[in-house]
C-alpha cells in the first residue's frame, strides 16, 4: 500500500463516521422529542415573507401537531419534484406550477392557497406616464425571463386587457429589474408586487404600479402535497394545514410580533423589510384563509394554454386542488 492510500483510507473512515454521527443526531432529535421531522422546500431565501411559518414554529403550533419543521430554501421546481416523487410531503409552490406538474403526471395536490392575490406587478417611473395597461403599448418592459411566475403574470395582465405580446417590447433582463429601471434601460419592469415596489419607494422613487391581481385572478403560492400522503396520512395533512393557518392568522392579526419572531429565523434581519411584510399581508387576507377558487384554476389553465406552455387542458383539473383540509381545520 503506498503512502497516499495509507493517508486516504483513515481519512475516508473518519468522514464516514462523522457522516454517520450526523444522521444519527438528526434521527435522535426527531425521536427524542417525539416529533416527526419534516423538510419543507420554501422556494426562496429566508425572508419575513415566510413569517406565518416562523410564527407557527415559534409558537409551537407545528409541535402541537407532532411536527418539527426544517426549512429548506431550495428552488421552487425542486420542491414540486420532491413532493411529486413523495420524497417530502409538502412544499410551497405556485399554482401555475401545479398545473404544469399535473400535465406531466406528477400526482401533486394543492391544499392551501396562501397568496390569495397574484403578487406580480408592472412598475414604472412616474415620469414614463404608464398608468394603465394600454399605456404599455409600444413601450419596453423588462422581465426576469420568458418563463416562470413573472412571465405568467405579465402575459395574464396583457391577456386580461385584450392586448397581445407583440404590442409591447418585452426584454429579458434577469433579476436586475431595479437597476434597469433606474438606469432607464427599460420603461417598465415586471416585479413581485410585495417586494421591489417597496424598495423603490423607500429609495424615494415616484412610481406607477400596475398590479396583475387587479385585472386577472390567477392561482399563486400555496402549499402542495401529493395524492399518496392524502390517501395514507390525512392526519399529517390536517395537522400541517392547521398549524400553517394558525401562524397565518396570528401574523395578519399582529404583524409587529410576527416581524420580531422572523428576526430569529432570518439572519441579520433589521427593520428595513418591515414594509415588505405589511405589503405581503395584503395578499394573504381572505374571509376564509387558505381557500382556493376553482374559477381561478380554470383561468390559470387557460392562460398557460394561451401562452403555449400547455398543449391541452389538464385531465381532471379539479384533482389538482382541494379545499377539504382548509375548511376542516379553519382556526
Amino acid at each position, binding site marked *: 500500500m503506498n503512502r497516499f492510500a495509507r493517508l486516504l483510507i483513515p481519512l475516508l473512515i473518519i468522514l464516514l463516521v462523522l457522516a454517520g454521527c450526523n444522521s444519527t443526531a438528526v434521527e435522535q432529535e426527531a425521536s427524542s422529542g417525539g416529533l416527526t421531522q419534516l423538510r419543507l422546500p420554501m422556494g426562496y431565501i429566508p425572508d419575513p415573507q415566510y413569517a406565518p411559518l416562523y410564527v407557527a414554529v415559534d409558537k409551537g403550533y407545528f409541535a402541537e401537531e407532532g411536527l418539527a419543521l426544517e426549512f429548506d430554501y431550495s428552488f421552487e*421546481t425542486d420542491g*414540486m*419534484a420532491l413532493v*411529486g*416523487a413523495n420524497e417530502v410531503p409538502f412544499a410551497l409552490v405556485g399554482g401555475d*406550477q401545479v398545473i*404544469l*406538474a399535473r*400535465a*406531466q*403526471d*406528477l400526482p401533486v395536490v394543492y391544499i392551501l392557497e396562501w397568496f390569495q392575490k397574484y403578487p406580480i406587478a408592472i412598475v414604472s417611473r412616474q415620469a414614463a406616464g404608464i398608468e394603465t395597461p394600454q399605456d404599455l403599448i409600444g413601450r419596453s418592459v423588462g422581465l*426576469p*425571463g*420568458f*418563463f*416562470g411566475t413573472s412571465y405568467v403574470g405579465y402575459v395574464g395582465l396583457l391577456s386580461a386587457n385584450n392586448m397581445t405580446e407583440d404590442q409591447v417590447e418585452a426584454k*429579458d*433582463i*434577469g*433579476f*436586475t429589474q431595479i*437597476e434597469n429601471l433606474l438606469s432607464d*434601460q427599460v420603461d417598465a419592469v415586471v416585479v413581485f408586487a410585495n417586494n421591489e415596489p417597496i424598495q423603490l419607494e423607500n429609495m424615494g422613487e415616484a412610481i406607477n404600479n400596475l398590479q396583475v391581481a387587479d385585472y386577472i385572478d390567477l392561482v399563486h403560492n400555496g402549499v402542495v402535497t401529493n395524492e399518496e400522503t392524502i390517501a395514507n396520512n390525512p392526519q399529517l395533512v390536517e395537522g400541517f394545514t392547521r398549524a400553517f393557518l394558525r401562524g397565518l392568522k396570528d401574523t395578519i392579526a399582529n404583524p409587529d410580533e410576527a416581524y420580531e419572531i422572523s428576526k430569529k429565523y432570518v439572519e441579520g434581519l433589521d427593520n428595513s423589510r418591515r414594509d415588505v411584510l405589511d405589503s405581503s399581508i395584503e395578499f394573504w387576507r381572505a374571509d376564509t384563509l387558505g381557500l382556493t377558487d376553482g374559477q381561478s384554476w380554470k383561468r390559470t389553465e387557460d392562460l398557460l394554454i394561451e401562452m403555449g*406552455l400547455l398543449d391541452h387542458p389538464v385531465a381532471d383539473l379539479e384533482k389538482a386542488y382541494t379545499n377539504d383540509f382548509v375548511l376542516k381545520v379553519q382556526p
Partner: protein
Amino acid sequence: MKNIKRFLDAQPTWLTVLASLIVLLIAWQLLVILGDYPAFILPGPADVWRQFQIVLADGRLVRHSLITISEIIPGLLIGLFIAVPLGYMLAKSPLAERLLSPYLIASQAIPVIAIAPLLTIWISSTYWSRVTVAVLVVFFPILINSITGIRSVPPEMYELMASLHATRGQVFSKMELPAAMPMLLTGLKVGATLAVIGTLVGEFVQPRSEGLGYLLVTARYQFKTDLVFVVLIALGAIALSLYGLVSLLERRLLRWQLRDGKSASALQREKVVVISQGSSESIKYVEKEI
C-alpha cells in the same frame, strides 16, 4: 475477461463506441424498469428519443443549439487569446508571476455563478455577458497549461538557440511555441469542454429567450424531464465535437511529436545532444528538426 478485451481491441473504433452506446442504453432502460421511476424523475431512452424528434422537427433544438454555439466559440477563443500571452508573460517573468499569480489563483475561488448576474449589469449586452462567463471559465486551465508548456522547454535548447544567434522572435516561433504546443492543446481541450459549462451557467443566470440554457430552464419549469435530457445530450454532443476538433488540430500540429513512441521533449533533448555534438549544423537544420 482477457478474451473480451482482446476481441474489443481488435475491433475498429466506431464499433467499440457503438457497443458501449448500446450497453449504456440497455443499462439506462434497465434502471428505469427496475427502479420503477416515473418519467418526470427518470425518463427512459424511448421517451427522450421521442422528445428529441419533436424538438428537432419543430426547429427548437437546432435554433437554441446554434445560439449556444455562437456563445461558446467566442468565449473559448477570447479566453485562449488572453490566457496564452499572459501565460507566456508569467512563465518568462518571475516578477510578473509574483505580482499577478496570487490574484489569479484567488480568483479561481470565486464561483462564476455568483458574479454572473452582476455581469449583466456591468456589460449591458446579455450576449457578451454570457460570452464573458465562458471566458472566465476557460481562462485558467489554458493559462496554467501555457505556463507549464513554456517552462517545459529544456534549458539546453535556449543555450543552443543562443549559440546559433537566434533572434527573440525566432526563439519564440521556432522553439518555444512548438515545444509548448502539446501542453497548450491540452489546455485548449479542457477549455473546450469547460466553455460549454461556462456558457450554460451564463444562460442560466442571464436568461434570454434563446440558447440551450433557456431551453433547459423552461423544460424544468414545465417538468419535461425528457426535454431536460435532450438538452443535456445536445450539450454533451457539442462538447464532444469541440474536443474532437481540438484533437484533429492536435494531430495536425503535433505530427512531429511522436516518432518511435518517444515523447516530444525526449526527442528534443536527443536532438540537442546530436546537434551540439555536430557543432557545424546551421539554425535552419534546428528549425527543421524541431
